[in-house]
């Protein structure tokens, strides 16, 4: 008496699923957004004169890229590959050279006192500089700072930066700040 329930033909359900799949493949993107994050300086108010920044001469390194994509760091021509070491030397100032930036002993919460470099990297470019060259230089500077941070982490925590806790990373960022100033646009083509 009991009638057997006919089996549901599921052959076409795969087709339906494939159709949906192709729809999503076409309308979505997979690209990860990645890049170099920066903070621009706020615009000075109109009535306010662009005052001379009270940055000591020794505390600033000018990295300049001209319209021919040539790089000058601290007034000497330089290849991009050598920039990283130059920046590291500038920020670390291992021998307390009076020409290189001074250090200020700062109290860092949760860590104690640490001599923080006051060095500022000023990045200047021309309107004719290619974006590629500009990013390459930005990348080298970030690389230099990241390596210093990495050394700091190894020396103090014995761990890589990404393995530290949020608070520890905060301390590292404070001890080795990323001070890059993207200066007001200037015409540096004459160099």
């Amino acid at each position: 008496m009991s009638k057997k329930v006919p089996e549901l033909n599921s052959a076409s359900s795969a087709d339906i699923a494939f159709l949906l799949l192709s729809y999503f493949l076409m309308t979505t993107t997979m690209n990860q957004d990645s890049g170099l994050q920066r903070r621009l300086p706020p615009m000075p108010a109109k009535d306010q004169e662009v005052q001379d920044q009270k940055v000591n001469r020794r505390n600033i390194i000018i990295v300049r890229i001209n319209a021919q994509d040539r790089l000058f760091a601290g007034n000497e021509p330089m290849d991009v590959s050598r920039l990283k070491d130059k920046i590291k030397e500038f920020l670390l100032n291992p021998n307390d050279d009076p020409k290189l930036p001074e250090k200020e002993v700062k109290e860092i919460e949760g860590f104690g006192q640490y001599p923080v470099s006051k060095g500022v990297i000023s990045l200047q470019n021309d309107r004719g500089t290619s974006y590629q060259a500009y990013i390459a230089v930005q990348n080298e500077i970030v690389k230099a700072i990241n390596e210093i941070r990495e050394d700091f982490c190894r020396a103090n925590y014995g761990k890589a930066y990404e393995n530290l806790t949020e608070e520890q990373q905060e301390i590292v960022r404070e001890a080795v700040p990323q001070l890059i100033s993207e200066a007001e646009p200037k015409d540096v083509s004459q160099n």
Partner: protein
Amino acid sequence: MAKFGRGGKKEVPAFTTASMSDIVFMLLFFFMVTTNMRETESKVMYKLPEASEVAKLERKDLAAYISIGPPAKYLQQQYGTAPRIQLNDSFRTTDDIRDFIAAERESKSEADRQFMTVSIKADSETNMGIITDVKQELRKCSALKIMYAARKAQ
């Protein structure tokens, strides 16, 4: 002879396709989770520059995108090949950035507005002139958090 002839009446059992849809659905869910909807059509061509120290954008929903590059192939007849700025769906000039940023700010929730990041997706061949103009404009509307979009170098 008999050996091969045996079972001539037996049919090949039907290939069961019931599990195939499960597999495809699994794929479907994978793509649904890992991808995100394409919001705007890109009208400019850009090949992002390479960099090794890239960081991921943490909050994608708080990003505003400015694309800079030469117009796409099919638009070059009309617009030429000089680099252009694309905001949302159309070519704009630097003067429109202010309105664009204001509109983007408006679309984010009050608490998150300060974390809004402007991602500049520029072609590696463009000159800094146009990018400097964009940066200056962004400074004027105090959208100071920016990101230079770049590909991770191998």
